[in-house]
């Protein structure tokens, strides 16, 4: 419950030709996470590499085809065996051919849309020339001494084009802006065309060529352009209709392709991780210790006796890369998601999910204690459970905690006269609330520090666990100081014992850092002192941070009273109820959200940052695609 599952380093030796079958068998168990070979020089060949490349290409074509023409059904069931490399190559070739036709459709649509844009621009230009009283048929005529061209460029290129063309004796004049492009006329001495052509190409010049027919029949220009445009669209549509016919025709084969690709996926994923030499192949990885019998059984069912599976515990130098696999009850999963949002526990590091769930719920309740509001939240969690995508237990738990603390505070929608508090009403004794929140914070920090020490011992970092400011010495320092301050608050004076214990622990941490760092005396003094002061200030500020638990509890009561007071100021019942309903919705949504964020902040910054590194590697098993497995 508090740690990840025990892992074993598994090595499977098989015959080279059984590689694909091994991949599928291991994927069916969902309990094997492959890893790159340990000694690549011993088994230097990677027989799955080409298969992997072919798969990737075939999958890419397939997905692009399906994105354009969805499958005619859901692929169910898998072929018994993964395809051979030659079969996959043939499938890839066929998918490529189908995709090329789809791609042609895409390309012709794009061209049609470009043509449409071009026709629009040409139409506008003809209109503009007509406005200026210029005969466009004259512009397109070639001349002996003068070169005139009309075209379009990006607006950002016009100034540069003008400068460059001036070097060849040309002038540049802008006509108008259409659809993000600048229509431009250039004119200069004939004979310099090769030089200007080169510049125009570099400027991404799109020449506007007025079709000869337009020059012959200028009165029908718009009509002719429209006809041309329609022809292009019709051509593109015809090409795309062919694709639809083609994909309908091949619907069955595409479904087969989906199944073949699904069964090929595990071997393709193994790709560079299945190493071989001659007829022997090997795949290595990690599996939970309790899954080993299942792995053996699956391999036996697929290969008979043609395999050797060996397993061992991870070596100490491998611990950093052993993947972490955690199993949580359904109720804890939303909390686990919030923990993994911070990080994945390292292998054998304490899994903080349960501790997080309990402390988060309690803190939420403490900060938002109200029977009515809590019941609303819990009811909302039940009612919209499906929309919460697995987070319903989280919402319901927060609501119930809020209602429970509402009982403790004696508050129902901020009204304190309906229920007698089990403890006190927060506003009745704010000082007491603040002191309690400090006790809560101190307990939280001490548990966090104890877990830090435990994790370090698990890692073999014994000195860190005992002598560091976040280890046992830090715990002694903090406890002694907290005890002394508490005595002082109760009016007894700090006393010499807490001072001496705290000073002793302080010196231990200082000495630890002093001996840990190499360097001159001054440098060591500075580093050790900075570290110790940093730890001490950290304990102090972390503790004060928990004052917000009481502050939000008080804030909630004050806000609820404000809503009640506003409502009571109104004479009409309707107005009163409107204020009460909307006021409480406001409290639940806004304040509830803020309290949840604050509780999460306390967990992450005051808790996790203390004991949880979260630098682990998640266990990612080899699996079969879910659609196919169904």
């Amino acid at each position, binding site marked *: 419950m508090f740690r990840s599952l025990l892992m074993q380093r598994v090595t499977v030796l098989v015959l080279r030709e059984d590689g694909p079958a091994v991949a599928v068998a291991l994927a069916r168990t969902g309990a094997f996470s492959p890893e790159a070979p340990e000694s690549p020089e011993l088994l230097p060949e990677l027989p799955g590499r080409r298969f992997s490349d072919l798969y990737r290409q075939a999958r*890419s074509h397939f997905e692009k085809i399906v994105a354009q023409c969805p499958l005619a059904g859901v692929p169910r069931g898998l072929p018994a065996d993964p395809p051979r490399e030659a079969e996959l190559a043939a499938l890839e070739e066929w998918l490529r051919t189908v995709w090329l036709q789809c791609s042609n459709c895409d390309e012709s649509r*794009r061209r049609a849309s470009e043509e449409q844009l071009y026709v629009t621009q040409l139409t506008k230009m003809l209109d503009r020339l007509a406005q200026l009283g210029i005969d466009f048929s004259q512009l397109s005529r070639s001349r002996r001494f003068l070169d005139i061209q009309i075209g379009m460029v990006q607006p950002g290129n016009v100034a540069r084009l003008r400068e*460059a063309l001036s070097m060849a004796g040309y002038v540049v004049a802008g006509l108008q802006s259409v659809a993000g492009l600048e229509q431009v006329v250039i004119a200069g001495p004939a004979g310099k065309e090769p030089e200007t052509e080169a510049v125009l*190409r*570099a400027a991404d010049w799109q020449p506007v060529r007025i079709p000869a027919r337009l020059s012959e029949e200028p009165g029908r220009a718009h009509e002719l352009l429209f006809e041309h445009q329609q022809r292009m669209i019709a051509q593109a549509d015809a090409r795309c209709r062919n694709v639809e016919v083609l994909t309908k025709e091949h619907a069955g084969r595409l479904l087969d392709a989906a199944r073949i690709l699904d069964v090929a996926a595990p071997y393709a994923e193994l790709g560079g991780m299945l190493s071989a030499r001659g007829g022997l192949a090997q795949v290595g990885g990690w599996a939970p210790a309790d899954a080993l019998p299942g792995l053996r059984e699956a391999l036996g069912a697929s290969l008979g006796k043609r395999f050797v599976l060996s397993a061992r515990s991870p070596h100490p130098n491998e611990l950093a890369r052993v993947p972490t696999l955690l199993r949580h009850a359904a109720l804890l999963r939303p909390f686990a998601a919030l923990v993994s949002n911070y990080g994945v526990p390292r292998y054998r590091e304490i899994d903080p999910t349960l501790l997080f769930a309990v402390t988060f719920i309690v803190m939420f309740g403490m900060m938002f204690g109200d029977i009515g509001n809590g019941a609303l939240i819990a009811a909302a969690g039940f009612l919209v459970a499906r929309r919460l995508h697995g987070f319903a237990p989280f919402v319901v738990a927060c609501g119930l905690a809020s209602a429970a603390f509402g009982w403790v505070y004696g508050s129902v929608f901020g009204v304190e006269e309906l229920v007698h508090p089990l403890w006190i009403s927060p506003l009745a004794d704010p000082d007491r609330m603040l002191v309690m929140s400090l006790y809560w914070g101190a307990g939280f920090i001490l548990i966090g520090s104890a877990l830090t020490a435990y994790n370090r011992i698990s890692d073999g970092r014994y000195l860190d666990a005992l002598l560091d400011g976040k280890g046992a010495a830090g715990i002694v320092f903090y406890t002694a100081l907290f005890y002394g301050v508490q005595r002082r608050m109760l009016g007894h004076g700090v006393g010499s014992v807490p001072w001496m214990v705290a000073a002793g622990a302080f010196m231990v941490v200082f000495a630890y850092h002093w001996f840990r760092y190499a360097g001159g005396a001054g440098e060591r003094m500075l580093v050790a002192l900075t570290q110790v002061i940093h730890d001490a200030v950290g304990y102090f500020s972390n503790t004060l941070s928990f004052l917000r638990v009481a502050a939000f509890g008080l804030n909630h009561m004050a806000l609820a009273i404000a809503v009640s007071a506003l409502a009571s100021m109104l004479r009409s019942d309707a107005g009163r109820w409107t204020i009460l309903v909307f006021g409480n919705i406001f409290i639940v949504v806004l304040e509830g959200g803020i309290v949840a964020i604050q509780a999460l902040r306390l967990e992450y910054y005051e808790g996790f940052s203390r004991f949880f590194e979260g630098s682990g590697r998640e266990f990612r098993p080899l699996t079969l695609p879910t659609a196919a497995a169904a």
Partner: protein
Amino acid sequence: MHAPARHAYLSTRVSAMAARLLSDGEVDALIDRADGQDDLLLQAAGLSGWKPEGTGDGGLSLEQRLIASLLADFAILVRAMRGAARRFFVYWACRFELSNLKAIMRGKMAGETPASIRSRIVDMGPYSRLPVEELLGTQDVAELLRRLERTPFGAIARETRRIFEERRELFAMDAAVDRRYYAGLDLHVQALDRSDRQHIGGLVGDTIDRTNLLWLLRYRFSYGLPPAQTYYLLIPAGERMPAQLLQQLARTESIAELITRLPREFARPLASVTTAADATLVLERDGWRRAETVLRSRAVNLGRVLAYLMLREKLLRQLRAVIKGRRLGLDPDLVRRATGVMAAFGPA
């Protein structure tokens, strides 16, 4: 807040990182060392664990590992930036992504397999905007460009499409991409606040001037392009070479004539240069020298960050030359020339 206060952390960080830069003397010594004796120097350069003889860990090529190392430094520095300064530096790093884009376009045009192209792609990590796998999975260049149009590189795709459809000129595509990049870099400099613009603008302007000069020499005298086209292909920005001067330079008929018309700071180091290739080495060395001056200055500003990144890139390129030189058994003096540690032309 004033620049020194804003950039104190970055400046300290850069000073600490700058200790890992190797001097030309140290790189020179590295060229003469026997195989297997590089560990200490490479460790000092922050590249411990390197295996110069192989392709490195994780199947990454030498180039990919070098750039990954530079990007790791970049990520540390850029994390502490915000606003226009951050946008500038992220754009600066975009050059590696543009190299990825060029590699994909070239590979697709040459009909290479996705695996072969992928082996040359640099992982940009969180700064990546290019959907590399999607582009690698395209069937042909037309589909590649169609998909590219839907990315932040859409403008490049549209320009490249016409070049591809009309001429299939790789040079023209590369030139278009590079020109856009530098023009964008200049726009990002203009967006910086006054103090940052002053410090970064100097280095960027200098880099653009040198790049313009190199392109001018290459287009005009190596490729024989006409003056107007040469001028159009240059970057419309820079520090000491305004548009009018660039037009005059583009009209020159020989390298010697061009050098006589250059501002003094460029003319002097190029005095004895006769080819565009030689000019490249001289101008690069001169640019690095300016970056070193900025990095050595005690002022607290973002210019030092850019100078560090430029010099780090220089060091990594030098190391690549040393390692490749060794692999190919090249003459050490040739490697010295390629790394710029031996003054081949002009004053050292």
